[in-house]
């Protein structure tokens, strides 16, 4: 595939640049803080899409990758004096490897059993970390101030981390786009449609599923490292927050599972909606009720999400907006 001749590739580049430059050029910190959350959501949704949308496996506990990435990164920086860059890369690789090993076991389960197992994994890891003294137990890990000094002071460090998060967002979209257009992706889609038929057609299903699971762990773990570095601390309840995991499913379903555009648009819209509800007085945490209702409505009436609906109205859009 000639990537540079694809309009969709340039669309991803444009969106990424827009996210990077909009707050950076004006030095607008409020806008940055809004966009960082939206970028994180897009990262979570895009990578979750590899499992839900491409492979047909509903991962309810995808946030475990984000949390582990955060913990590994902060631990390496705080206790072993690593720099941010090697720390997030290492955290991503280790999380991905763990997912690979775990995947061979847990992906033998299908449907609701797989979904339940993924919740179990997240909760088990959360409890383990909350009782794991080297990682601070329930108190978590705090970054020493010197960690920011190495990056030119806190103010500069926060901008750098923001740009890095936007970069990871761009890479997530690019990754899911490339997978969708590849032979590997075709195999995953075949698994989504009918796993047994895919196997008879020659798709090495156990390996393919595990690779998808492992791949969907890497960038969220890197993003977790960056996000919690930016926060300066990480605690179990925030790192392994099951709510966010379920919200990520809503984002993917809202935008349209199996499409790159859908996961991004779904995440963006959900972040806007959530922000709106959170600022309304007396409605704190009400966004979860909305999220639940939204999920129900999508599954019942528009299982293809926003993109599914758009594709129905303009079938030619399928070729342009992947």
């Amino acid at each position: 595939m000639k990537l540079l001749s694809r309009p969709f590739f340039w669309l991803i580049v444009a969106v990424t640049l827009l996210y990077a430059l909009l707050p950076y050029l004006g030095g607008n910190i409020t806008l940055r803080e809004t966009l960082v959350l939206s970028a994180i959501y897009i990262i979570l949704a895009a990578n979750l899409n590899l499992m839900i949308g491409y492979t047909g496996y509903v991962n309810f506990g995808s946030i475990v990758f984000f949390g582990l990435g955060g913990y590994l990164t902060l631990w390496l920086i705080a206790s072993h004096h690593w720099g941010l860059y090697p720390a997030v890369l290492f955290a991503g690789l280790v999380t991905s490897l763990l997912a690979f090993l775990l995947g061979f076991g847990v992906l033998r389960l299908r449907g609701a059993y797989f979904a339940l197992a993924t919740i179990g994994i997240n909760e088990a890891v959360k409890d383990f970390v909350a009782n794991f003294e080297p990682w601070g137990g329930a108190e978590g890990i705090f970054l020493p101030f010197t960690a920011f000094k190495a990056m030119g002071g806190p103010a500069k460090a926060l901008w750098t981390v923001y740009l890095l998060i936007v970069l990871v967002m761009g890479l997530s979209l690019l990754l899911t786009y490339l997978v969708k257009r590849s032979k590997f992706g075709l195999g995953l889609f075949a698994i989504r449609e009918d796993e047994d038929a895919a196997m008879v057609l020659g798709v090495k299903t156990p390996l393919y599923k595990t690779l998808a699971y492992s791949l969907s762990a890497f960038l969220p773990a890197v993003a977790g490292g960056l996000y919690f570095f930016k926060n300066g601390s990480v605690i179990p309840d925030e790192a392994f927050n099951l709510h966010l995991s379920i919200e990520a499913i809503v984002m993917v379903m809202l935008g349209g599972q199996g499409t790159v555009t859908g996961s991004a648009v779904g995440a963006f819209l959900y972040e806007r909606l959530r922000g709106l509800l959170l600022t309304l007085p007396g409605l704190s945490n009400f966004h979860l009720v909305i999220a639940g209702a939204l999920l129900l409505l999508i599954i019942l009436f528009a299982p293809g999400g926003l993109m599914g609906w758009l594709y129905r109205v303009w079938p030619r859009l399928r070729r342009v907006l992947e």
Partner: protein
Amino acid sequence: MSRVILEVERVTKAFGGLLAVNDVSFQMHEGEILGLIGPNGAGKTTLFNLINGVYKPTKGHIRFRGEDITGLPPYEVVKKGLARTHQIVRPLNEMTVLENVVVGACFGADNLGLEPAARVAEEVLEFVGLADFHETLAGKLNLAQKKRLEVARALAAQPKLLLLDEVLAGLNPAEVERMLGVIRKIREQGISILMIEHIMQAIMSLSDRIVVLNFGQKLAEGTPEEVASDPRVIEAYLGDPEMAKKILEEEA
């Protein structure tokens, strides 16, 4: 006689106490069309599942082109050049007809990349008469078209041996004729065919030889004429040996 392509040797499959396939042996030669018949529940589809690796045999061996493939998973078996269709069609519904066949070509014996696989898929769709449906979602096809899609996907894998599981079932007479034409054309390409079929007229006219299963065991084997006049076979289908005798006498 040409070379043996498939050898099923004393294969048994037990589900709990039930012997779905019981000590079945037979051989197939290159270029041959072998029919597999038997009453419902005789173990025909189970035998297919054993040959292409969906199930592991409890006992016995399966050899394909001289190589022992017993217990290999289906995705390895298809790469050796042994493809199959399903009795109950299994289209990848939300993918286009072309994508369905590209999956077959990509992950088949030649392990093609996406672009060469697309070329193979187009040829195969032309071959089975689905050339006008490239962009149709597979779920939207009618049954006859879905059956042809099953055949196309299996053919795209570039098999040496094709297992066809009731590709004629549920088709109207015109569609049956059309499918028979496709099967004859496949044979002309030198691909061996092992087929399960209930439409007797079709299988009798297509097959070089026929194997009859009943209650998981091999009941008879021979040319279509030999099998059709075998009292045990008639009994298996009609259930009454006296009736079988009478029919045979009347025919004589």
